């Protein structure tokens, strides 16, 4: 043949075929192709044949024709083995049902508790993060210092004049916004009337500082006109109904009425509802320019005092806040000059609080809504992690016991030829199975538990697969990780066992020997003991608070908050006292359970020579009924009388507490009566020299968290903001109705705000109360998981010791003997756990108690209590199972071979 070279099939195509095609197919397929190639070449042209040949090979390039990729074979074997492991695993879970249930339940509970705590913690940590410039936004807070340079007050609010001046003077501040909460105006729209709505006035910068996404309108147009009103989604629904989006509400006019003023506002935009995770919640925003017309210029330019303006600034990126704070020291010197011959900056200062730290770290005076607590977040995180660990440890423990039942199986597998890795894979598959089972159970528990947590912690946590996808994914990963880790120990251990030993089916875990498992059990006990201890201490402290005498009577006292509308205080009180069930009424500036925040400095004269008072002595303003209404004990001198008024009379009258007398150098309070004291200046007026009229016994005006400080009571008609009413216990409902009736005659606009003082008292400790309940729930879960673990473990130990028990009984051992043999080991572990848990938990709880100035002492009984309780729980759990084994007939156990 002439063109021999030319009429062979294309070499490269053939090579390609050989490269990808299965070896066992290649020969005949290539033969077929070549044969047909030659027929085709003879029938038509070689080029066409070549083209056909190539095309056929390209078409053959598909998976069913391809060689197996390297390792694919192995993968397929493993897949088969995995299926086998899965099957065996499921069978084993089914065979040991009780063990499976215990294990799944324990793990699910631990996971659920962890989930819930993680949700809570995540929520607490996510506050204010949604704002685009969150890292640049700072809140301007004002510090006041006393004459001796001590920080006396720290306000969450600033003065009206601060924002504008700060922005003008410092280039680092790019935007500044003030919020002002105006006296809750009514909103009218057509026939609809919405009483006391929370309209907040804000500077135009507001939308550049905070990110409030607009649903309708935009941030440029929102405050263009003075009479603009920006609604949130839910207020839009409130005014215009569910279908507000279909109505054209932009430009609609609503009427705001407050304190006799009336103004038509135009709806200029609708923003999304402010998320729960924000440290303030506003419903309507209106431009500050409107409000500026209502205040005189002096008020708007005020730079010291009148701290009612919630002020935020947006700093240029990269501003060093601390350096900036220092720089702004001159601010007060510039605008206020000198006060009493000293620089104003010695009395006033700014703090720039990062927005992101406000929720958990702030707690200043006048916070717009209660803040969270970082300490609480820490405590919960630790507890959550501990619970998860306990559940894991419990799981490992049970898995180990469970696997060691199967020595014979391991032996047989080894004989057949299972390698260590295959055995390892089997145990790991099985241990992961349980964790996989427990995840849906845990999620179910979370769904059930969430409403309780929400109502209890006052949160709106949401748990859904979409919004918590990451969390769920990570927890699933974690659960599987737990399965792997906890499977690893028994798996490694079992797969290494010598063949002969394994075939004999010897118990490899000698219960008498110290091993890793004992450490696991000890750890579990450590956590349980610590939690019980924490619970007892918190509970004890709460009881201590409840039972301790604060020095005043809080039951049957009603606190009525006054409004600016009430003008005739005498008449109000007189009218209220007409009711037979209202025994006494007293006006004061603050009431017990509040804070002692007004401190103006004082001068004390001992026999006409000035004695410097170098301690803080805050004051409250009261009338003559304050001491009897609260049953405060007068230990020397007299109470105020009607008609005395410090500001009008030439001589003042003061009542101080025992601590104040002692601080002034009079351990015997009787001797201080009649000495001279000058308190003030107050509102620019010096109250002048006065005499000490009486001394009262120390009482806890503030909560038990803080120490009783020297304080002074003044009698004036100024600043009386609260009315305390002592009422009779019977028929409280009608008394309250009567009070409301009288109130409306004096202030028709604002509803009466009242609260019982004992409730206020309890509210002071709300956070501790919550903590106590949470710890209680989690301690119970921990104990429960621990008991589950014990049941499983003891069951296993008894199983491995059936023969031993039988022989012992046959030789004459009593039931108590046998109980002792099985349980003594656990008590050793408890003892060890107690020794480990005590120092840490004692230190932690002592630290917590130090947060209270008045606290209970941790007694020996309290320390030993967790030990006793743990022993008790162990005994009950052990007892039930062990009794059965100990009482069984030895014949049954010995004949079993």
């Amino acid at each position, binding site marked *: 043949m002439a063109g021999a070279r030319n009429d062979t099939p294309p070499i490269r195509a053939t090579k390609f075929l050989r490269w990808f095609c299965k070896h066992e*197919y290649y020969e005949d397929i*290539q*033969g077929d192709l070549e044969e*047909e190639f*030659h027929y085709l070449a003879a029938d038509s042209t070689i080029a066409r044949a070549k083209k056909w040949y190539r095309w056929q090979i390209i078409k053959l390039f598909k998976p*069913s024709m391809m060689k197996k990729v390297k390792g694919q074979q192995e993968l397929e074997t493993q897949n088969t083995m995995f299926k086998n492991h899965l099957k065996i695993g499921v069978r084993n879970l089914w065979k040991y049902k009780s063990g499976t249930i215990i294990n799944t339940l324990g793990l699910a509970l631990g996971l659920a508790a962890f989930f819930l705590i993680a949700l809570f913690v995540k929520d607490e940590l996510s506050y204010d993060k949604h704002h685009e410039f969150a890292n640049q936004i700072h809140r301007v807070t004002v510090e006041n210092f006393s004459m001796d340079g001590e920080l006396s007050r720290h306000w969450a609010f600033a003065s009206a004049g601060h924002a504008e001046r700060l922005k003008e003077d410092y280039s680092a501040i790019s935007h500044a916004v003030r919020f002002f909460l105006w006296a809750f105006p009514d909103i009218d729209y057509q026939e609809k009337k919405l009483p006391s709505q929370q309209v907040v006035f804000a500077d135009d910068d507001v939308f550049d500082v905070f990110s409030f996404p607009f649903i309708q309108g935009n941030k440029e147009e929102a405050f263009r006109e003075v009479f603009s009103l920006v609604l949130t989604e839910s207020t839009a629904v409130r005014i215009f109904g569910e279908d507000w989006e279909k109505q054209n509400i932009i430009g609609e006019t609503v009427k705001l009425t407050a304190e006799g003023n009336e103004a038509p506002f135009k709806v200029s935009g609708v923003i999304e509802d402010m998320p729960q995770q924000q440290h303030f919640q506003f419903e309507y925003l209106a431009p500050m320019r409107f409000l500026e017309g209502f205040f005189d210029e002096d008020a708007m330019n005020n730079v010291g005092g009148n701290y009612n303006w919630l002020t935020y600034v947006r700093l240029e990126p990269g501003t060093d806040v601390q350096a900036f704070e220092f720089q702004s020291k001159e601010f007060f010197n510039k605008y206020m000059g000198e006060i009493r011959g000293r620089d104003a900056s010695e009395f006033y200062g700014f703090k720039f609080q990062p927005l992101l730290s406000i929720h958990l770290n702030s707690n200043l005076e006048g916070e717009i809504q209660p803040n969270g607590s970082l300490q609480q977040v820490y405590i919960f995180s630790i507890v959550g992690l501990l619970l998860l660990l306990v559940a894991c440890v419990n799981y490992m423990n049970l898995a180990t016991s469970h696997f060691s039942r199967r020595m014979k199986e391991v032996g047989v597998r080894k004989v057949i030829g299972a390698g260590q890795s295959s055995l390892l894979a089997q145990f790991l598959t099985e241990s992961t199975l349980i964790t996989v089972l427990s995840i849906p159970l845990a999620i179910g528990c979370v769904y059930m538990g969430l409403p309780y947590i929400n109502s209890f912690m006052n949160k709106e946590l949401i748990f859904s697969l979409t919004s918590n996808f990451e969390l769920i994914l990570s927890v699933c990963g974690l659960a599987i990780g737990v399965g792997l880790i906890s499977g690893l120990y028994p798996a490694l251990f079992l797969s290494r066992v010598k063949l002969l030993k394994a075939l004999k089916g010897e118990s490899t875990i000698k219960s008498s020997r110290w091993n890793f498992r004992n450490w696991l059990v000890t750890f579990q006990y450590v956590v349980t003991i610590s939690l019980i201890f924490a619970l007892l201490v918190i509970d004890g402290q709460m009881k201590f608070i409840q039972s301790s005498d604060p020095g005043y009577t809080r039951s049957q006292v009603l606190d009525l908050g006054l409004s600016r509308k009430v003008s005739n205080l005498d008449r109000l009180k007189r009218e209220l006292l007409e009711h037979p069930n209202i025994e006494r009424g007293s006006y004061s500036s603050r009431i017990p359970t509040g804070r002692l925040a007004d401190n103006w400095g004082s001068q004390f004269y001992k026999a006409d020579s000035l004695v410097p008072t170098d301690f803080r002595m805050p004051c409250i303003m009261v009338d003559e009924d304050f001491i009897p209404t609260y049953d405060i004990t007068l230990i020397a001198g007299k109470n105020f009388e009607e008609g005395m008024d410090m500001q009008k009379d030439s001589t003042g009258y003061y009542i101080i507490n025992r601590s104040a007398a002692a601080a002034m150098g009079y351990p015997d309070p009787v001797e201080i009566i009649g000495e001279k004291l000058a308190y003030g200046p107050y509102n620019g007026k010096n109250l002048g020299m006065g005499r000490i009229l009486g001394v009262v016994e120390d009482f806890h005006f503030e909560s038990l968290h803080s120490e009783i400080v020297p304080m002074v009571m003044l009698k004036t008609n100024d600043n009386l903001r609260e009315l305390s009413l002592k009422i009779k216990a019977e028929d409280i409902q009608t008394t309250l109705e009567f009070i409301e009736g009288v109130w409306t005659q004096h202030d028709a606009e604002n509803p009466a705000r009242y609260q019982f003082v004992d409730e206020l008292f309890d509210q002071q400790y709300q956070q501790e109360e919550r903590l106590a309940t949470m710890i209680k729930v989690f301690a119970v879960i921990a104990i429960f998981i621990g008991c589950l673990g014990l049941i499983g473990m003891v069951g296993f130990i008894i199983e491995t010791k059936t023969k031993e028990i039988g022989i012992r009984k046959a030789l004459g051992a009593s039931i108590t003997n046998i109980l002792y043999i099985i349980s003594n080991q656990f008590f050793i572990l408890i003892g060890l756990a107690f020794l480990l848990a005590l120092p840490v938990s004692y230190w932690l709880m002592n630290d917590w108690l130090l947060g209270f100035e008045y606290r209970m002492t941790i007694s020996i009984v309290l320390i030993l209590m967790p030990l006793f309780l743990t022993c008790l729980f162990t005994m009950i759990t052990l007892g039930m199972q062990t009794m059965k084994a100990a009482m069984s007939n030895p014949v049954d156990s010995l004949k079993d071979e």
Partner: protein
Amino acid sequence: MKKYQLGEFEEIVLLTVAVLFDDAYGVSIRKEIEQKMNRKVSVSALQTALRRMESKGFLNSRFGEATAVRGGKRKRLFLVTPFGKEALEHAKDTRIKLWESIPSIAFDFGK
């Protein structure tokens, strides 16, 4: 039913293998189908069907002789197994049954 799963193309290939008895290999099967059925068959489609039916047990195969025109490569000769025959019969029977159960009126297109 599942046991005899046979696609339309597979059925044709299987039948052709039976027809070509003892000389059924890639080239001859393809030629046979292309001539008798007047349809194009690619080597890839044919080979896939053959290998699949072999793994299902409808076909057996052995190596035949090697010829020069094949570049010294051996043929793979296919043979229908008894199981393959059952599958074919099953397919045929079901069709006949279906044919028989068609009511005469169904194909009476009103002339």
